[in-house]
């Protein structure tokens, strides 16, 4: 594939083999992980929800009701398989920005997520008790935070891990390197999940790096590098679960590369026809993670047309409810941006707020 992120391993210090449980056609090619019955179905439903959220969000954006939106289609399995493999009651998720599904699974309301993308301050609200860090706009800048959190959890003797998500583009940032290296030294309980979708906006992986893979970098930090078919939700589940257990055992961090596909544009502001050729798009569709998993679940009698219809209904209701909440959220207090900058607010800022309020009142 021309982005190069499926480059074949070769040579010395070669990339690890691509790990798969299901082949692209949905047939089992390795022992499946032990997933609770409800979670199997839950994962597919969440993936389906993601695909539908994209559709809704893109349409809201077109109508000017949403800001720039980064679709997740094609990458559902990478988020969902990994986040289902952790214990959301104790473990933590540090997202970049394309992991809405992991965020929702952790407990973020979909309406909050939409408000965030609409630029409403209420979109910054992460409910207390939800082990989720805010999404990060600056690429890889949250990775040192994730390491610090994992380090702190261990210092506090909590048996928990941190899953930190980022993309192939982000893996070129200095912060990626410093964070992985520090995590290795500390044996911090972190799972670094790199969603290698082959693109950083218009830049394909072969221009992003000459490395055969991102996983191959693990050795440079004294941690295992694992390469997983990111469109195979079961492989993601299995690999993340193993990395989590190793981290809890004191075995330190893992660099987990999820080789996946970005079906759409980078964001609603992007026009991929400028840089992607049509054949590639078509080829990618053949790797649909939802189709793959649904085929498998059908083959083991965990899914049928009725389940499908129910799931679609559930998705639509979830989205409808969220959009309703989103629509009825009142515009923010104009002075809201003065809040939560400081705990002990400098007098100068207090004055600025007072002047701001006075000026508005005087209109």
């Amino acid at each position, binding site marked *: 594939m021309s982005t190069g992120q499926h480059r074949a391993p070769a040579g010395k210090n070669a990339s690890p083999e691509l790990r798969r449980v299901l082949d692209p056609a949905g047939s089992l090619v390795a022992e499946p992980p032990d997933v609770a019955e409800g979670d199997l179905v839950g994962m597919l439903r969440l993936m389906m929800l993601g695909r539908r959220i994209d559709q809704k969000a893109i349409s809201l954006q077109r109508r000017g009701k949403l*800001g*720039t939106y980064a679709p997740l289609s094609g990458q559902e399995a990478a988020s969902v398989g990994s986040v289902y493999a952790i214990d959301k009651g104790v473990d933590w998720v540090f997202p970049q920005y394309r992991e809405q599904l992991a965020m929702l699974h952790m407990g973020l309301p979909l309406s909050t997520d939409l408000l965030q993308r*609409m*630029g*409403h*301050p209420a*979109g*910054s609200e992460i409910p207390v008790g939800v082990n989720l860090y805010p999404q990060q*706009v*600056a*690429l890889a*800048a949250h990775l040192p935070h994730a390491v610090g959190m994992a380090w702190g959890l261990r210092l506090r003797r909590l048996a928990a891990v941190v899953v930190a998500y980022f993309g192939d*583009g*982000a893996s*070129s*940032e*200095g*912060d990626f390197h410093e964070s992985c290296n520090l995590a290795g030294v500390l044996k911090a309980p972190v799972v670094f999940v790199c969603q290698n979708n082959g693109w*950083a*906006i*218009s*830049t394909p992986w072969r*221009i*992003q*790096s000459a490395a055969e893979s991102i996983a191959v970098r693990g050795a440079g930090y004294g941690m295992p590098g694992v390469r997983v078919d990111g469109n195979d939700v079961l492989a993601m589940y299995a690999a993340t679960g193993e990395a989590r257990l190793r981290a809890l055992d004191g075995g330190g961090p893992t660099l987990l590369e999820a080789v996946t596909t970005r079906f759409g544009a980078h964001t609603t*502001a*992007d*026009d991929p026809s*400028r*840089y992607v050729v049509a054949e590639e798009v078509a080829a990618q569709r053949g790797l649909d993670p939802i189709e793959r998993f649904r085929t498998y679940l059908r083959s083991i009698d965990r899914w049928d047309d009725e389940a499908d219809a129910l799931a679609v209904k559930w998705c639509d209701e979830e989205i409808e409810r969220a959009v309703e909440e989103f629509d009825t959220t009142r*515009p*923010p207090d*104009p*002075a*809201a*941006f*003065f809040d939560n*900058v400081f705990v002990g607010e*400098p007098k*100068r*800022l207090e004055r*600025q*707020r007072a002047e*701001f309020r006075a*000026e508005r009142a005087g*209109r």
Partner: protein
Amino acid sequence: MAVLSMVEAIRSTLEAELRTDDRVIVLGEDVGKSGGVFRATDGLQATFGAERVVDTPVSEAAIVGAAMGLAAAGMRPVAELQFLGFAYQAYHQIAGQLGRMRSRSNGRFGAEVTVRAPYGGGVRAPELHCDAFESALAHCPGLKVVAPATAADAKGLLTTAMRDDDPVVYLEPLRGYRLVRDEVPEGDHLVPFGQARTARPGEHVTVLAWSGLVQVVEEAADLAAADGISVEVLDLRTLVPLDIDGIAESVSRTGRAVVVQEAPLTAGFASEVVATIQEEVFLSLEAPVLRVSGFDTPIPMPQLEDEYIPDVRRILAAIRRTVEY
């Protein structure tokens, strides 16, 4: 003269310089095949090839640092940072390296680099896409900092920047990228650094601004005129070098000044302008120099950014306060 938007003026200037100087090379994230997220490099790779218009990995520090090395090898690199908010990631290369290589090497190695970056709010962009921190750039010895407000100056100052032997940070107003359109001289057009532009002459008060807020100030000046207040609008154009004489001339004439910026108040570049004015023309001042500024908070999320960025109302209020002082 053609009427162009700022982004078109920038694109055509890059094209002209690529054409006339084979040492010019354009590098940055997504500048090549896609032509830049704002199309500022649209079509350049198709015209000049992937060796001269280069998509880089997502590595801001390496983009600026490699540009310095390219310059040391005799090239004339123009590095694009996709948004100024990601120049934070390159700040050690900008503040610690770019402006210092010439003095560090006693003049042996310059850093003939132009770093372009769109910045500022007004386009409903996400967090970190609209940060303005001109002062943290202007404070770096050895750097020039340029911030045009019109398409004509976008061309004239970019041409000067790319031919300048000193490193230049060239700031492009996101809000003016497509909205600001004016007549751009054809052919070679250089605007010298260190000369403010009198966007409109006036008598009662000087309002100083740069980049995306100049047009907002002009609007406020229109409204003030209706009130009988004659406002001189000074577009600084370059922050380093600063046109101290031009500023002093204007304020010593009007006796009053307001400085407008989008960045947070504390330690913003407006503070420098105020300090300079009171140093230069203290005895002419009939009122304190006021700052109309962003607040000491991060620029808010899109829904509130209009509350944060100085608007006509706030600028006008400051003009009145100053004149009535």
